[in-house]
């Protein structure tokens, strides 16, 4: 089990911390996530992060199939999830998780409520449309080649008419079916009185098809069924890849959240304990919180004393001690001793409710963003339509008949159909998302990359973002070697983060033998050495009178008998590459700011160390938003990087946002990007890739315009035959796609 935890070191600091606190600590009761199938079987979905190869796949499936009552076990290597169905009478869900643990795989139940049924059906619908469009494109093209060959030789008019009618029979239903994703999106845009790329696409497809149908009926010489069907086919490929890439990132993000699925242990009125899902907690329930687990709901402490790590909620890096009567917040980590709480959640003044309110209002500031492709469409669509109208007017003025004038005008619309423009963004997006996924960065928002490329200011949170949220011993004050050894000996027996940091510091110190070691919850460690009581713990516990300390961070005191207590000072450790990353970002011209909820001295210390001139401390969530609004008013595009619950509204309010994978659930949901691992380097890489992607998108727009610049004069002059239209469209689409793939070859360092 420990090996599993170690091999997951890349999956984020917070998870490691919780795991180290005890392998069983916080493990969720899987029976809460079991569903009933229509055949009366029980089904559960499990996330197994360590499946990487055929061997793992088979081990998992074979292990599960060995269990009595299992009817179906199928592992999905792409989503890293396993679906198991079994006879509920023969097997308990906990046995399934246990069996996988025996096989060497840590499995976590996946909350079916997180399942994005929507994305999956969208993916399938696109794939079905793609299949239909592909079939139609191939067959219509086959017939068109025959017609083009017939132009050179002699084809009877009746044969050509026959071919056109068959093309129409294939193309019309295919377009009606496969074009729906575009037609719907175009309709939505028009209803909202805006313009997106799908409007000109739909218009061109429909006009080309409609005109071809009329031409077929009157047996005229040019039909464009092939052009409109192939166009749909190419566009659907782009759209499908786009949806798939995002679905992949989202499913990875869901797994991260699922890994932290939580259940609460409720103590019934009769003293019995049972697990319930966190969302089923009601105010007034009594909940037991083991040490090393997260507090499931806002509540009040009934019994027990413990230290609570609130860094994920408030950004405060020093654990707070709680005693009966203290208020505790959902999401904070109980680090020292078991507690019993009375749930007070659902109050409208709960911390989470406040955060959600702030997030909703912050959201509104964001809605105004228009994507690059849609901005292009706003200029492009009117231009094209004016051009077509001008063509109509021109031919009419030159004395041509209505029919000729209309044919040429529609030909203009067809060749200018933004096929390449429709592909220009999604293809680049797919390549960039895939590349980032390999670097452990999940792109959650579809417009995230575009927005990130715009960013010019970066606002960092402190605790858990620039720092690891883990204390480190910085000074042992006036303590001599013997005292340090004594402190280390006591610290080794505790799981308190400060004690662990002290123990880690003195890992190779030979410690004196102590007797009668025990932990006083919320206070510290106590033991006996040579008949004298020694204590390691907080100020009060060690009898340190109210002597003021210049140190802002957390501290431990060692008291031995009547000697003066010795102070050990700790500080939150910065991520190993924090200074380097900040330096690089500054050199690249970003304005860097530090916005923390932690105390002023601590923030100043870190800002000095990392050379951040602009910092603000003790910022509450609404003050963070206010600061971001201020920056926005100055015309800055802000990238917010934060992890705490208190950062969530700010993550939503910023132009674009990133969270480490150790962040609070709400923040991960709010952020546009999630980066994994203990380094900050992914931030630099993501910005580079986002900027590279934007360059390529602009290039792609340029390429598409070059094609139009060549094709439009031909169309206006009336020279666009179906052959020319087909060649222009396909080659521009392929050029644009190949150009996007270049992002894969670009080196980053």
């Amino acid at each position, binding site marked *: 089990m420990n090996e599993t935890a170690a091999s997951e070191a890349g999956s984020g600091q917070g998870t490691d911390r919780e795991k180290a606190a005890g392998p069983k600590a916080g493990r969720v009761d899987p029976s809460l996530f079991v569903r009933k199938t229509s055949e009366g079987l029980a089904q559960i979905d499990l996330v197994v992060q360590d499946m990487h190869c055929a061997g793992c796949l088979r081990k998992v499936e074979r292990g599960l199939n060995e269990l009595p009552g299992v009817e179906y076990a199928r592992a999905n290597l792409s989503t890293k999830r396993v679906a198991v169905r079994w006879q509920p009478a023969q097997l308990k869900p906990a046995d399934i998780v246990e069996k996988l643990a025996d096989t060497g795989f840590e499995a976590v139940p996946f909350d079916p409520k997180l399942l994005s049924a929507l994305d999956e059906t969208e993916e399938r619908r696109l794939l079905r449309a793609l*299949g239909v469009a592909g*079939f139609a494109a191939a067959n219509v093209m086959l017939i068109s080649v025959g017609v083009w060959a017939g132009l050179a030789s002699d084809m009877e008019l009746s044969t050509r008419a026959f071919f056109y009618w068959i093309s129409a029979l294939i193309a019309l239903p295919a377009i009606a079916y496969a074009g729906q994703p575009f037609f719907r999106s175009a309709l939505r845009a028009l209803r909202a009185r805006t313009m997106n790329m799908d409007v000109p696409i739909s218009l061109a497809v429909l006009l080309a098809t409609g005109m071809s149908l009329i031409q077929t009926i009157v047996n005229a010489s040019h039909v464009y069924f092939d052009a409109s069907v192939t166009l749909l086919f190419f566009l659907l490929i782009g759209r499908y890849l786009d949806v798939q890439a995002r679905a992949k990132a989202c499913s990875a993000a869901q797994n991260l959240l699922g890994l932290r699925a939580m259940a609460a242990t409720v103590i019934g009125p009769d003293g019995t304990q049972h697990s319930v899902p966190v969302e089923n907690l009601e105010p007034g329930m009594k909940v037991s919180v083991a040490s090393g687990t997260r507090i499931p709901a806002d509540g009040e402490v009934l019994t027990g004393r413990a230290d609570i790590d609130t860094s994920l909620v408030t950004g405060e890096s020093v654990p707070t001690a709680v005693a009966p009567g203290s208020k505790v917040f959902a999401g904070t980590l109980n680090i020292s001793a078991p507690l019993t709480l009375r749930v007070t959640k659902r109050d409208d003044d709960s911390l989470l409710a406040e955060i959600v309110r702030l997030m909703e209002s912050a959201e509104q500031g964001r809605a105004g963003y228009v994507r690059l492709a849609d901005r292009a469409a706003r200029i492009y669509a009117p231009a094209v339509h004016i051009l077509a109208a001008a063509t109509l007017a021109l031919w009419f003025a030159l004395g041509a008949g209505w029919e000729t004038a209309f044919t040429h005008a529609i030909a203009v619309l067809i060749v200018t159909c933004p096929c390449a423009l429709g592909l220009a963004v999604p293809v680049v997006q797919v390549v960039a998302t895939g590349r980032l996924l390999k670097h452990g960065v999940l792109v959650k928002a579809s417009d995230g990359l575009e927005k990130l490329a715009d960013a010019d200011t970066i606002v960092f949170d402190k605790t858990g973002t620039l720092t690891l949220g883990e204390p480190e011993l910085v000074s042992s004050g006036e303590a001599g070697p013997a005292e340090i050894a004594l402190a280390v000996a006591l610290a080794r027996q505790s799981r308190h983060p400060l004690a662990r940091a002290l123990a880690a510091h003195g890992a190779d110190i030979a410690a004196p033998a102590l007797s009668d070691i025990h932990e006083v919850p919320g206070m510290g460690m106590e033991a006996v050495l040579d008949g004298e009581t020694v204590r390691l713990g907080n100020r009060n516990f060690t009898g340190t009178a109210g002597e003021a300390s210049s140190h802002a961070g957390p501290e431990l005191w060692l008291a031995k008998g009547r000697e003066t207590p010795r102070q050990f000072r700790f500080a939150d450790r910065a991520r190993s590459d924090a200074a380097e990353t900040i330096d690089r970002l500054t050199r690249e011209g970003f304005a860097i700011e530090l916005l923390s909820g932690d105390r002023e001295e601590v923030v100043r210390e870190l800002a000095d160390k990392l050379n951040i001139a602009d910092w603000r401390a003790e910022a509450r969530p609404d003050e963070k938003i206010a600061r971001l609004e201020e920056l926005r008013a100055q015309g800055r595009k802000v990238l917010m990087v934060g992890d705490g619950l208190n950062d969530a509204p700010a993550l939503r309010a910023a132009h674009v946002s990133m969270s480490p994978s150790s962040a609070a659930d709400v923040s991960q949901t709010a952020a546009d990007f999630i980066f994994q691992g203990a380094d900050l380097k992914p931030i630099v890489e993501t910005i580079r890739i986002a900027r590279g992607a934007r360059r390529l998108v602009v290039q792609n727009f340029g390429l598409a315009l070059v094609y139009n610049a060549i094709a439009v004069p031909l169309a206006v002059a009336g020279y666009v035959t179906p052959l020319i239209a087909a060649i222009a469209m396909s080659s521009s689409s392929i050029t644009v796609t190949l150009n996007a793939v270049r992002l894969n070859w670009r080196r980053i360092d």
Partner: protein
Amino acid sequence: MAVLIYLVPAALILGGLGLAAFLWSLKSGQYDDMEGAAQRILFDDDEMENPPPPKRDAEKKD
């Protein structure tokens, strides 16, 4: 050109068969796990009934 009467429907039926096969494979969930499908060809069906000594699995995991 009478031959077209046979050839065109023949082409369409063949294409239609391909489309039907694709839609069926999509419906039966064959595109749900592309990575898994690529790895599953390495499974040896005989071994599923006759489990090999665990040592071989350990080798494969690397």
